[in-house]
């Protein structure tokens, strides 16, 4: 099924106050989970026919938003993910793009083909590396613009506010001279294992990011539809993976771009890009790989 034609996608399109919708098919009867703004009323929901007989579970929560941070936003104590690194730079670290007043996470070692050439570097979000100045060659700094750049923006998929999306992703080439500045390792995790896998409800998850560093959680939903705030606009995403932390939040502002992995196998599952109200949203890595012509494994 086209994910943009799914019943939960239509729930978001028909209900502007709903920020997250997914179906738990493991319950009997299946349960439709909806997260909505505090002012919304249950009887105001417009549900497609396919979902009329589902059990309904409504959560009241703040809207979902992208997880970038101001460069001066520091955790206490400052974690190693915000420190300057000498090459080869381990990922899960803070990056700041040229002409931007925000920071995010360089999440995942990546290799891809662009115009017939192999490129090596890292995967992050479109809104971390490309938004505001979408230009091949845009400099990417680590940990911020006070240190020399480590990469250039190379490939991205625009987020469209006017139609449902699947990914918020960008690739940065880490070769600035004769060397690649970035490593194939992720801070506190090591080397991801391949092939990547689809997230599955209940699986243990792990991620390494700029603000909350190493956190553990679990996948609570797949195939979800989410409405995410980008500051100046909102965008809908379909067929998304949903995670919650085991102890505290799984993510926070500044963790956008982190790679989410299966905790037991260290195989990538999702690209973290949004969150709110204790929930973290990730693009399935299969959609990212397909759209950006990612090649695995990294050497």
């Amino acid at each position, binding site marked *: 099924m086209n994910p943009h034609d799914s019943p939960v996608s239509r729930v978001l399109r028909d209900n502007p106050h709903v920020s997250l919708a997914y179906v738990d098919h493991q319950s009997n009867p299946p349960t439709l989970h909806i997260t909505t703004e505090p002012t919304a009323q249950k009887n105001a929901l417009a549900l497609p026919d396919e979902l009329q007989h589902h059990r309904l579970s409504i959560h009241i929560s703040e809207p979902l938003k992208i997880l970038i941070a101001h460069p001066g936003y520091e955790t206490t104590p400052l974690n190693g993910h915000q420190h*300057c690194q000498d*090459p*080869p730079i381990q990922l899960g670290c803070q990056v700041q793009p040229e002409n931007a007043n925000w920071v995010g996470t360089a999440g995942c070692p990546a*290799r891809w083909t662009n115009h017939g050439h192999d490129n090596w570097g890292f995967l992050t979000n479109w809104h971390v590396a490309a938004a505001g100045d979408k230009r091949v060659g845009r400099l990417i700094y680590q940990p911020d613009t006070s240190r*020399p750049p480590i990469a250039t923006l190379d490939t991205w998929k625009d987020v469209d506010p006017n139609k449902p999306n699947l990914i918020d992703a960008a690739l940065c080439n880490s070769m600035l001279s004769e060397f*690649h500045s970035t490593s194939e390792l992720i801070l506190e995790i090591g080397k991801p294992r*391949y092939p990547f896998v689809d997230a599955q409800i209940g699986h243990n998850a792990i991620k390494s990011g700029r603000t909350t560093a190493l956190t553990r959680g679990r996948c609570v939903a797949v195939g979800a539809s989410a409405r995410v705030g980008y500051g100046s606009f909102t965008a809908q995403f379909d067929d998304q993976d949903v995670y919650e932390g085991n102890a505290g939040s799984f993510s926070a502002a500044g963790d956008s771009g982190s790679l989410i992995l299966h905790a037991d196998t260290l195989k990538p599952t999702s690209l973290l890009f949004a969150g709110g109200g204790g929930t973290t949203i990730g693009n399935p890595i299969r959609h990212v790989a397909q759209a950006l012509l990612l090649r695995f494994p990294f*050497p």
Partner: protein
Amino acid sequence: MCKITLETNQMKAATSIEPQADFMGCLLPALLQALPIFIQAFVECLGSGGTTTGYNPGGPKRC
């Protein structure tokens, strides 16, 4: 009639075939049995790019 040894961990196949082995009855089934191993090795080789040429981590200190 024939003895086939597959060393799957090393991604290679070694065959020891006695003189009377016939192609359809022995060698062909052995080759078919080994085919998935060769395909897997080929795919993994493609996936890794065959070599690590092109990825050159390092560079001067910057901190």
